[in-house]
């Protein structure tokens, strides 16, 4: 059951020029956390910024009762979050939203993450690994200094290939080009993707070409986070009417379920 908890900041460390990793003690929220879900944070108690900020579960440690978030500083809310120190408290609602599902038996889980979109895929990889699914991670960023999650994936013991534009990682170029290159044709892949929308649209196109299935994790501006305000609407594919709520019906959707935006927002 989702709940609201005043969570103790265990650590809040800068991991790249714009990214932070924050571990929170949230013992009431932790037992219910599934990969793909998110938490809704009130970044301070000043009502400035006013609304909560949604962040994916990057990792969950059920034994320690902690959740870890990976966030990129992009505006007022994330700037305020970055100023939190260990031993301070932050108000967290969660876990919210529809989680990822597991692949059909015998299929490989292929996780394609771009930039900070890698966040929900780490906890997913952990759970897939626990359930003995074969997992491969394709992780793309602009430069190798932004590959902040790479070590964590490798510690999990999942096969991880990194693509950057600067040529200082395993592959030089787009992670979606890497996807085509990695295709072995011998195993059936179940795709999970999160990142910039043009990237996810490309992954969906790849899946369509090879008749594969999978899931995407979407972002939309949110107010309530619980399905009450109808603010986070997205259009269903091939439908003239009818919107879905990213916070409640998602943020995870079937790869072919929603329209993906090719132009960057």
């Amino acid at each position: 059951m989702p709940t609201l908890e005043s969570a103790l900041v265990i650590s809040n460390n800068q991991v790249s020029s714009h990214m932070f990793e924050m571990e929170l003690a949230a013992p009431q929220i932790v037992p219910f956390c599934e990969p793909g879900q998110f938490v809704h944070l009130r970044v301070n108690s000043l009502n400035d910024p006013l609304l909560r900020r949604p962040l994916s579960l990057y990792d969950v440690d059920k034994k320690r009762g902690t959740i870890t978030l990976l966030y990129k500083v992009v505006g007022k809310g994330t700037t305020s979050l970055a100023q939190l120190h260990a031993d301070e408290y932050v108000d967290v609602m969660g876990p919210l939203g529809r989680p990822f599902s597991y692949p059909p038996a015998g299929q490989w889980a292929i996780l394609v993450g771009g930039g900070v979109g890698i966040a929900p895929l780490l906890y997913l990889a952990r759970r897939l690994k626990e359930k003995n699914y074969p997992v491969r991670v394709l992780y793309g960023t602009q430069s190798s200094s932004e590959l902040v999650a790479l070590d964590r994936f490798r510690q999990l013991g999942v096969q991880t290939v990194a693509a950057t534009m600067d040529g200082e990682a395993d592959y030089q170029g787009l992670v979606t080009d890497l996807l085509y290159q990695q295709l072995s044709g011998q195993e059936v892949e179940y795709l999970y993707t999160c990142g910039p929308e043009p990237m996810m649209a490309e992954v969906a196109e790849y899946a369509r070409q090879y008749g594969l299935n999978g899931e995407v994790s979407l972002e939309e501006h949110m107010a309530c986070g619980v399905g009450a305000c109808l603010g986070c609407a997205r259009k269903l594919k091939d439908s003239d009417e009818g919107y879905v709520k990213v916070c409640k019906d998602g943020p995870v959707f079937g790869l072919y379920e929603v329209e993906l935006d090719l132009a960057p927002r």
Partner: protein
Amino acid sequence: MPNQPLKPDKVDMSVNLGGLQMKNPVCTASGTFGYGSEYIDYFDPALLGAVIVKGTTMEPRAGNPPPRIVETPAGMLNAIGLENPGVEAFISQYMPELRAQGVTVVANIAGNTLEEYGQLAQRLDHVEGIAALELNISCPNVKQGGLQFGTDPDMVYQVVNMVKSNTQLPVIPKLSPNVTDIVAIASAAQEGGADALAMINTLMGMAVDIDRCRPTLANIFGGLSGPAIKPVALRMIYQVYQQVKLPILGGGGIVSVRDALEFMMVGASAVSIGTGIFVDPYLPCQVIDGLQEYAAQHGLASIKELVGAAHQE
């Protein structure tokens, strides 16, 4: 208010808003609390004075394309476009659960024409569990070239009158602040037969996305809510309280107990909380408790004694 302090449980929190009987003066605002069950993990909606459910239209509405919301300084803009399943689905899909939970339900209705308001009122009149009708009159009148019902005193009179003649329920028109003379509008609603007034709905505004060089909202304009509109709401309620003798359901930007007290002091008999719930889902319960404590500390045997207190010489 020099009275002796009381124990909080000695304060009578009940209010009667033009025939809408509530156990306390705190409601959740239409469109911000869904159909009462969305926040069930956080608190029991039956604790509220009333739940004002999402605006209902005759036919289902898909709503506006995204982006539908944008945060602004001390507030937010929304252009949801009245997404709702239509009155029949509201009655069959949502009312049973609301009844089972023992929630005091206020339906919020929105029409495209005068006649639709009448039809909606009639359809909801004998639905068990609905305690009152709130009229969203910030809707474009299709037959009058899209002019908002709520901006013209004559149309306000007609809408209220139409609804009144189609229902036994208390009728609470929700006034739009996007007008020059709020007292004229409130008076027209009173003449039309309103039992109480809800004020205020959102203020029309917009935001610009400089990266795309476009209005941020797909609908271009949206309704501003949250703390940014509180001073406007207080001023309008103060004015109307002096001129119009109808109980007022006040709201617009309430994010604390203190805010709710301000609304009651300028003349609101009850308060509605909207955007504040997004910030803190526990806020409605905190406001109920906080109002009770305040009244107790000031020795008020009834919360009603706070209403309009700021008007005393």
